[in-house]
């Protein structure tokens, strides 16, 4: 693990890794997003109970699954940073936090939009909705703690501690909220009673989940690259990178003129 990890403590190597991975994530993610969304929204059959409204599942479920995954990703990055003192890990943590917050927000909004036709209200204090809302606050907390420090290195460490506290709390929050709700109103409103969805509905959903993971991976890589450049802006490797880019642009425009 250590041998594999430690070259990427060097910002330059991490940048190059992002550069190699980015096209794969972006192209595969973009393609599967198009395929999955079109398949789900246009081709898959309508639900016999929920009608066409169920199609929001193809946006809601991927975002809901990803939101917690991204929080875990953030906490793992924070853990690596705190334990092995890898400063690029903190940059990764900072890069993933806004993506996670946004995806959590999307899952809340789509959840509300789905709740209106199905349950008749925009918002229900259902256990899942509530824990999702708290998850968004946890993301925002980590982000705003990082932003309040002038020194990004120090801010990264502080936000990392908070992310670790949050990840320990996340299961407690999840189960306590579930328990709280079941205490108060007995039956849960929305439950995926049949995990055995019809295959024509399940396949586009799986494609959508994978595509959302890939696309948010691509956004994360882009953000990480930006973060690396911003922090290392005066280092020789960044200067060399910019000069190289300028040169290739110049030669390209020269070729165009000819």
């Amino acid at each position: 693990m250590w041998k594999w990890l430690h070259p990427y403590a060097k910002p330059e190597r991490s940048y190059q890794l992002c550069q190699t991975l980015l096209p794969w994530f972006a192209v595969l993610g973009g393609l599967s997003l198009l395929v999955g969304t079109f398949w789900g929204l246009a081709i898959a059959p309508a639900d016999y109970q929920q009608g066409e409204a169920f199609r929001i599942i193809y946006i809601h479920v991927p975002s809901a699954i990803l939101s917690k995954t991204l929080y875990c990703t953030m906490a793992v990055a924070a853990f690596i940073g705190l334990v092995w003192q890898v400063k690029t890990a903190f940059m990764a943590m900072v890069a993933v936090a806004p993506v996670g917050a946004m995806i959590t927000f999307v899952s809340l909004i789509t959840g509300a939009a789905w709740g209106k036709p199905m349950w008749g209200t925009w918002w229900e204090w259902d256990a899942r909705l509530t824990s999702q809302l708290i998850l968004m606050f946890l993301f925002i907390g980590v982000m705003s703690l990082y932003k309040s420090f002038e020194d990004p290195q120090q801010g990264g460490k502080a936000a990392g501690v908070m992310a670790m506290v949050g990840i320990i709390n996340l299961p407690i929050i999840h189960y306590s909220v579930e328990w709280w709700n079941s205490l108060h109103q007995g039956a849960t409103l929305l439950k995926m009673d049949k995990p055995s969805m019809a295959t024509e509905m399940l396949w586009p959903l799986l494609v959508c989940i994978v595509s959302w993971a890939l696309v948010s991976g691509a956004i994360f890589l882009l953000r990480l690259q930006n973060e690396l450049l911003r922090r290392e802006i005066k280092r020789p490797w960044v200067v060399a990178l910019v000069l190289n880019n300028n040169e290739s642009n110049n030669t390209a425009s020269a070729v165009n003129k000819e």
Partner: protein
Amino acid sequence: MTPVMALLKRDLTLAFHQRAELLQPVIFFLLVITLFPLAVGPNASTLQIIGPGVIWVAAILSSLLGLERLFRDDYQDGSLEHLMLSTTPLPLIALAKVTTHWLTSIVPLIVLSPLLAIFLHLSEAMYWALLATLLLGTPLLSLVGAIAVALTVGLNRGGVLLALLLVPIFIPLLIFATSAVDSAAMELPYTAQLAFIAAMLLFALALAPFAIAYALKVSQN
């Protein structure tokens, strides 16, 4: 243990010298509780239903006010640096600080709790449950809160940020505590909820001092 005891004594003495600052969170706590009957009406049965929740929310908010003070003065006059350089382990020092916070800003609230029970028309069973949850749960507020305070002590605008960081984390405690009192109101056993709170407290007691120590190091840079 002696240096820790000395530190505890020093902090308590300092806290009692600044009586106004000591009293403010208590007054705030009372004020928040007073607002609720005015806002929702003086109906006894309504107040009894929302009472435990109101008391707990007010306790969380006013503990946040007191928390801000936890490391601030020591950080500003440099004695925190001295404490960190001393041979006493930093987690123990952190634990002493947390104890001071609990004794000075939370115990007064617990002492006031019978009055609140009267204000909000809690039944006797509910009051005992409330007292048990407060005794077990509030040290958790101090312990976990101190982590965030230690992280934000170097920042000038800690207050709102502190609430933003801590309130989501206190939610499980709020849920267990109020559901214990609700069970007591229906004359059901509530040991399960108390056991949950105690488990969280022990868990935090084991880990939080180290997290606070690390956070202080981050803040001192």
